[in-house]
Structures are given as structure tokens and as C-alpha cells.
């Protein structure tokens, strides 16, 4: 049976400034009326190996996270998984597993053969990921555009 579910997965730590961007996008999407019916919205928090289990059974996943891309704060970009350069933490899965992140979860998912057929990643350049709750003005300002782009992907 072909999996038909779409998943939008927001990642990041809401205690660390703009690292809460992923959760903010999920919250914003949740309030919109134009999200298709077969879409699951998940605030995945800080990712670990178990993140791969959330992806299992989906046809398409859109991952949203703050990302260091060397752009101006608030700038955002859309990547296919192959184009995104995800840096592993602590030497990846050959180092220690106590610091596994998104890169490791995707690598594990690929090895297990359970990754969704389509993986899209939205990165939002943070202004600040210091110890504070709440987004910067630059990031808050772009949330509606990011949401609209995601909805276009979900309908496509």
C-alpha cells in the first residue's frame, strides 16, 4: 500500500531564540485554513535518532528549521534533501550517538530504507540562537512567506 500522508516537521529548540523558528512555522500553519487534509503537522523539538520514526510511512516530508547558511538574518531557502549540506554532530554515527541530530536521523533512515520518497528542507537563517525565548523581528517577519511556500509544496 502506498503511503499517502504528508508531514510538516518543525525542528529546533524554542528556548534558543530563532532556533524556535521551526516550532513557530508549525504553530502558524496550524492556524491556517488552507492546509490540505492529509497533512500532519509535528513540532519535533530537537531531533535525535528517533526522529526517523516520525518520518516512517509518509510519502512527502517538509522539514523546517533554523539553519546557518551564511545569509542575512531572516533569509530563507528551500532545498531538496540531496542539495542540502547537513553537517553531522560529533563525528556522525561513527562517533557518539549521544549527540545525534537531523543529519544522522536521515542517514539512518536512508540505511533502513524507510525515508519518505520526497524530502524538502526549509532553512531559515537566524539572527540569534542565544538563550532567550522568542523570535527576532527579521525571522518573525518571514514566517507568512515560508508558510505559503510550504502550502504550495503540499498542494503540488
Amino acid at each position, binding site marked *: 500500500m502506498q503511503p499517502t500522508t504528508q508531514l510538516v516537521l518543525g525542528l529546533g529548540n524554542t528556548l534558543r531564540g530563532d532556533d524556535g523558528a521551526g516550532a513557530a512555522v508549525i504553530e502558524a500553519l496550524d492556524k491556517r485554513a488552507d492546509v490540505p487534509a492529509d497533512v500532519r503537522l509535528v513540532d519535533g523539538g530537537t531531533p535525535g535518532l528517533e526522529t*526517523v*520514526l516520525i518520518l516512517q510511512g509518509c510519502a512527502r516530508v517538509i522539514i523546517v528549521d533554523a539553519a546557518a547558511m551564511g545569509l542575512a538574518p531572516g533569509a530563507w531557502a528551500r532545498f531538496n534533501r540531496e542539495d542540502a549540506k547537513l553537517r553531522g554532530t560529533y563525528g556522525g554515527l*561513527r*562517533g*557518539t*550517538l*549521544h549527540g545525534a541530530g537531523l543529519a544522522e536521523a536521515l542517514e539512518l533512515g536512508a540505511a*533502513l530504507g*524507510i525515508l519518505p520518497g520526497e524530502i524538502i528542507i526549509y532553512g531559515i537563517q537566524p539572527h540569534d540562537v542565544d538563550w532567550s525565548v522568542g523570535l527576532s523581528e527579521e525571522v518573525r517577519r518571514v514566517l507568512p512567506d515560508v508558510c505559503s511556500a510550504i502550502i504550495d509544496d503540499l498542494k503540488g
Partner: protein
Amino acid sequence: MAATTKPNVSINVHHVTRVEGHGNIVVDVKKGVLEKCDLEIVETPRFFEAMLRGRPYDQSSHITSRICGICAVGHATASLRATETALGVEPSEQTRLLRQLNFYGEILDSHILHAYMLVAPDFLGVGSVIPLAKTAPDVVLRALRMKKLSGDLCKIVSGRHTHPIAMTVGGFTHFPTSAELLDLREQLEAARADLDATVELFQTLDFPAFERETEYIALRQDDEYAWIDGVIASTDGGTWPLEQYRDVTNEYMVPHSTAKRAKNQRESYMVGALARFNVNYDLLHPQAKKAAAALNLAPVCHKPYMVTAAQVVEIVHAVEDSIRLTDELLERGIEWEEPVPPSRLSGEGVGSCEVPRGILFHNYNIEDGIVVGANCIIPTNQNLQNIEDDMRALVPTILDRTKDDITLALEMLVRAYDPCISCSTHLLDVKFV
């Protein structure tokens, strides 16, 4: 393969992989004689004991749970017991049951990660869990599934997957619903199939038979396999009340390590799953004893590579006892109890738990509600000298192997202990000369 009987072997493993934290193995053999055999801990010190000083007593458990992401519940629980002992707080029976159930969540999470993803790859001839995922995806999926259940257990009981936010001095600030406990019970029962598969898998692994007579230290209680509270017990004989923990640990520094060492009745001792198994075998759940028999593990076992087998036994025990606890909590019905308040605001207390890697001590001095002194002795600290003594005994017996094989044997020995190196480097005494 013929090799010289008096070889020169020089091994320098920089940052052993598949352990938590950073440690190096340095071995130097000249003409068949072992000259140097060091486990260097190079993790930076983290100053948690100093951090607690000046903080209100009710923050200690939240701060110390941040010592580690995998033993957060263990630190928080030991911390709470130290504070409660110091300030005259007797937790209710419901609190006791909830804390034990929460504790099992962490034991399961840690042991499953260690056994499946840190140790098993060596035995299955792969470098990490990634190739294992390709050749045996159902094994890895099972491990992830069991880990997820453990995290969900902690979330239901203490509010989060990691860092038990709902645990506080005297009790809890949030409680699971009956519906959540029922759902948990169903998942735990379903996990029995995964338990059988786990025992079956680890039965096929060829644990090295290396043996060295060792003293094992663990918590002991009269009528249950001890995880929280008890007396300190030794396989060499003797028990000590918790307040006398220093008589057992005898911490000291060595030049090549940022983490302290410990010794009791011998030059070193071991704590952890194998120590607990050796000290408390009689109190294991019957299913866990069956698993031990299947894994050829019987007390008193002096084979350090068998720590992983003891962890599998404890995984079985933890799931079975969690089912029992969940049933008991469901039968009693959860009551929204206020935390028990302190009966005084000054005092000293020692709290102790058997966290995944062994016996943990938190010792606090509190004055007028403020922490004025703290001492934390971590299981991995207590194991470091034993690991080195094991390496020192092992190397001369395997000098006929290739350098790569000797290195692998040493790495597997360190990995078997499941060291949590970040936890163990929490203090440094700086001497300016």
C-alpha cells in the same frame, strides 16, 4: 599468523568511538613488557558541584539533571533524595512508585542504546549502526522502537523525554492520567516480543571470555532489586550506609586524566549492570533470570565483556517490573498530591541511585534553604581505574594478535563498561605553581 613473542606494540586511540564523551587509550609495549597502559580522560571539567552553591534547594535536581542527557533522571533522582534526606522529607508511596517507573524509562533508554548501537556493531562486524541498518534493518528498527517507548514512558510520568521537569522535592507537579497509564501498559506488554528477540540476538554474540577477579559495588535492599536508596554492598563482603559513601569511594586524582578515580578493598572496583547483577541476582524478576541463563550469565561473574549481557537481563527486568508498577498505579488510582514540604531548611544528606552505569552519589549541605556544598560521585569515575586494571591484565594475554586486533579488543573493553565520560569530568582542582 606467527608473531614475535616479545613484540613492540604502540597503540594510541585518539577519542574512542561509540562511547559517550572523549577518552584516549594509550598502550606501550616494549619487547613484550607492558610499560604504559592508560585510559586518558580528556573531556573538559564541567563544574556542576560549584554551580549548585548558592542556589535554592529546590533547583538542585533541575540543575544536576543537565549533567547528562542520557542519565538526567538518575541525577535528578539522586539529587532529590539527597535534598529530602537533608531537609527531612518523606516521599509518599505514590511518589515512590512513580519515581521507580520513571527510573525504568531511563534504564531502558540507555541500555538499549548501548547494547544495540554502541556494542552490537563490533560483534556483528560493522563499524556503526548505519551498515547494521542496511544488513539488519529490523534489528535497528526494533532498537529505535524500544528506545521510543522508554522516552514516551518518561514523558508520561515526569513531563519530558529528557530532564524530568515534573519531579520536585517531596513529589511531583504533574501526574499521568489513567488513559496514559493504560496505553503505556499495552505498549509494555507488546514490547515482550521485542524482549525475546533481544535475548535471542545477544545469545548469538560471542562475548570474549577475559576474566579478572574484581570487587563489585552496588546498592542493596532486602526485598527488591535496588535502583533508588538502599545500602552500599560489595561482593567482597560488607555493607555501608549511604552516609559513609566516602569510605567506599576513596576518590583520588591521576596525572593523565581530568576525571578522578576510586578504590575500596582492592586497587579498583566495578559498578554498573554487572555489579548490580552480581550483588542482587536473587531479587531479579524470573523472566530476567531466564534471560541470564540463556546468555550464560550467572553470579558472580568476573568477565567485564559480559556487562552488556547484564544490561540485556536488566532490560527484561525493567520492562516486567514496569508492567507490575503500572498495574499497581492503575489499581490505586492516581491522586493529585501536593509535594511533601521540608520539615527543616538546614541539614546534610546523601542520595544514591543505580543509574544505568552504576552507583551514583549526591551529597548536599543546605543552610537556610540554600545549597552551601555539593559532592557528586559518578559511576564512570568509579569504573575508570578498573577499566585500566582490566586493560593492563588483558594486553599481555593478547600480544600474539595483530595491532589492529589488540586495538579493537581494548576499544571493545572500554565500550563494554558503557562509560559516560561527560558525567565523570565534573570537577578539577586547579593548582597554580
